[in-house]
């Protein structure tokens, strides 16, 4: 592989706080050097940055790529293509495939399939309970050794308090990360949109905001009792964010993430029965969206993850109650999140931390940093460049974006994994 030099870039490394103009040299798939100027080896290929941002490749810790089981909605290959187009170089795929990833052989199968594609790095989650049924623990230690980065029952809350207590206790001894879908199912089941005035007017069953905080607070008691590492997926309500903030102050090993759609959109999106805005957890009231932004700004929310959930047309062109939950997002995560920077709510470095080093550290990945000798997983992007999100312009197989027709600012220009260019923007 020819050495490659990024020139005239804005180097951004949230792990060290680096934000300076400079150059970065990639050799043999690794970051060989970076700084104000670096020596040019013979035969070097130059990528002229023209002032664009160069940061560690983004890490998306929550995606569904449909394989195996729902290949008609998304495949690893198409999901990875979408990730690359979004500047994402590592993804963690959820275990609710068919069959689910609750067995080391399944986990190895998915990891091998992804490796064969030689592109974006795919790290599987494993199920917390067998068959994601919430009753018996999966083989957590064996799954960990097979490469599971964290454990979760994906889109189902582990509702049984005793099973959760055992899962957390068992996981704490192995220092595993337990990820919860925070929703009390007995309150949320049958609901399709956020409970409140809009649900009432549309005659749709609501999912109350308190279903989220109830599950989080229950789990926090169990975390306190077990000392486990606990992560709240796609947090969406003020009350739950407040609960996590208090737990962090108390010193519990608790983290949480939110999604681009929960930081950018509110429940008004479901007006006119727009099923493309039907997500789990539902888009919430504006006050909750504001709390999500506050939580990101003050550090309560550690990570932004896309929760990329591909759905085909037939799963969405239905009455609201029958349509599937979920939106895609791996490809639009960066530009949608950049809104916080453009609106002056966060610095670019602080935002990038939640998209790179924070999720990498949570999952224990060697990723998310600009370091000499580190794998050259890099994202080059123009933070200002405006564009319009359209279905046709997206790489993923599924087209269920909640941002169709929206103008955003920030375009990924080039994505590199282990020194290989896996995406290059062409105007």
């Amino acid at each position, binding site marked *: 592989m020819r050495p490659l030099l990024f020139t005239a870039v804005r180097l951004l490394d949230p792990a060290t706080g680096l934000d300076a103009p400079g150059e970065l040299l990639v050799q043999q798939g690794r970051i060989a050097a970076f700084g104000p100027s670096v020596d040019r080896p013979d035969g070097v290929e130059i990528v002229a940055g023209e002032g664009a941002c160069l940061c560690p490749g983004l890490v998306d810790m929550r995606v569904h790529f449909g394989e195996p089981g729902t290949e008609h909605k998304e495949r690893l290959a198409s999901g990875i293509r979408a990730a690359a187009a979004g500047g994402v170089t590592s993804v963690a795929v959820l275990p609710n495939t068919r069959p689910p990833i609750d067995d080391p052989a399944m986990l190895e199968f998915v990891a091998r399939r992804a490796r064969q594609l030689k592109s974006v790095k795919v790290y599987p989650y494993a199920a917390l309970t067998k068959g994601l049924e919430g009753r018996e623990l999966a083989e957590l230690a064996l799954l960990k050794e097979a490469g599971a980065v964290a454990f979760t029952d994906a889109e189902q809350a582990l509702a049984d308090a005793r099973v959760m207590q055992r899962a957390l206790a068992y996981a704490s001894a192995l220092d595993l990360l337990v990820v919860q879908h925070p929703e009390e199912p007995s309150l949320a089941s049958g609901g399709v949109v956020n409970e409140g005035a809009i649900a*009432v007017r549309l*005659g749709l069953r609501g999912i109350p905001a308190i279903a989220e905080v109830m599950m989080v607070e229950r789990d926090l008691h169990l975390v306190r009792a077990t000392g486990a590492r606990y992560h709240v997926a796609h947090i969406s309500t003020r009350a739950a964010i407040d609960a996590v903030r208090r737990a962090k102050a108390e010193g519990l090993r608790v983290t949480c993430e939110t999604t681009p759609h929960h930081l950018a959109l509110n429940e008004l999106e479901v007006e006119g029965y727009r099923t493309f805005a039907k997500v789990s957890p539902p888009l919430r009231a504006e006050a909750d969206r504001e709390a999500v932004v506050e939580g990101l700004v003050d550090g309560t929310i550690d990570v932004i993850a896309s929760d990329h959930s591909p759905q085909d047309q037939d799963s969405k*062109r*239905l009455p609201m*109650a029958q349509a599937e939950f979920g939106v895609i997002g791996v490809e639009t995560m960066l530009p949608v999140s950049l809104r916080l920077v453009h609106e002056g709510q966060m610095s670019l470095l602080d935002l990038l931390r939640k998209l790179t080093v924070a999720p990498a550290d949570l999952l224990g990945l060697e990723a998310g940093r600009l370091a000499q000798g580190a794998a050259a997983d890099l994202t080059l992007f123009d933070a200002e460049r405006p564009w319009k999100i359209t279905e046709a312009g997206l790489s993923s197989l599924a087209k269920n974006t909640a941002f169709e027709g929206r103008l955003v600012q920030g375009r990924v220009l080039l994505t590199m994994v282990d020194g290989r260019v896996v995406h290059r923007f062409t105007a």
Partner: protein
Amino acid sequence: MIDLTFRQKHLLGIEGLQPWEIADLLDCADRYVDLNRRPAKKLQLLDGLTQINLFFESSTRTLTSFELAGKRLGADVVNMAVQGSSIKKGETLIDTAMTLNAMRPDVLVVRHQDSGAVSLLARHVNCSVINAGDGSHEHPTQALLDALTIRRRKGRLEGLTVAICGDVRHSRVARSNILLLLAMGASVRLIGPPTLLPRAFSTFGCELFTDMAKGLQGCDIVMMLRLQNERMQGSYVPSVREYFHLYGLTREKLAHAAPDALIMHPGPMNRGVEIDGVIADDIDRSAILDQVEMGVAVRMACLDLLTRDWRAAA
């Protein structure tokens, strides 16, 4: 006939209708009430037009009412009950819509168990669509016939106080009535147990009551809603007996309303559950059979107005 043009292509809900459009519809329906009382009821207004009544949810009175309305205006009316048939074969709502559309109907009257399903269907057809009830969302012709009933008995809508009692949460009748009555200047009170009356209903601009006697105080209209049996299993209410004790309309509770208060019910009634049979049958107080009569007239008016542009073009 009144010379009206109606700017809507479909009637999907009361939401989106302007007060003057509601008034026009009611004025037009008023004429049909008179027509329906004549021995010779049939007109040739919709001669040659096809009306399909597409019902995904069973119904007797609404279906019959729409069928009669279409036939009295001279349309060719076809009833399609879809429960089970195509749905079981895996056909989606949009497929059903496009299939029927290819048969070139002029009006589709649709009832569906899911909120929003009728507007989804309307986006995939060329003809006019009338919502005959979608989930818990809207039932606009019911609200219109209720308004016509009230207007004929009380002479106006504006300034009246209307109480809607019962399972407001699941009721499309309640939602359409709330929207219509508020748009026409009435005030609306909602009465029911908290389990069936979400607080968010106050955002419509209604007053909420859990105490029926207080809610009925001085009301001009008492609209009772049907309590469906499955609500017992959902632990919305403990028992029929207890529900009737708290929210069943009896003479004692009715005494709190205005002396000339009118009693309404969209039907079918559960006697002894939400309403005492004696009150339902009191012809001085109960407008329940008027409502049924107004139903046909209102649906004729809707069919007439929605097809005017088409007929003018033809």
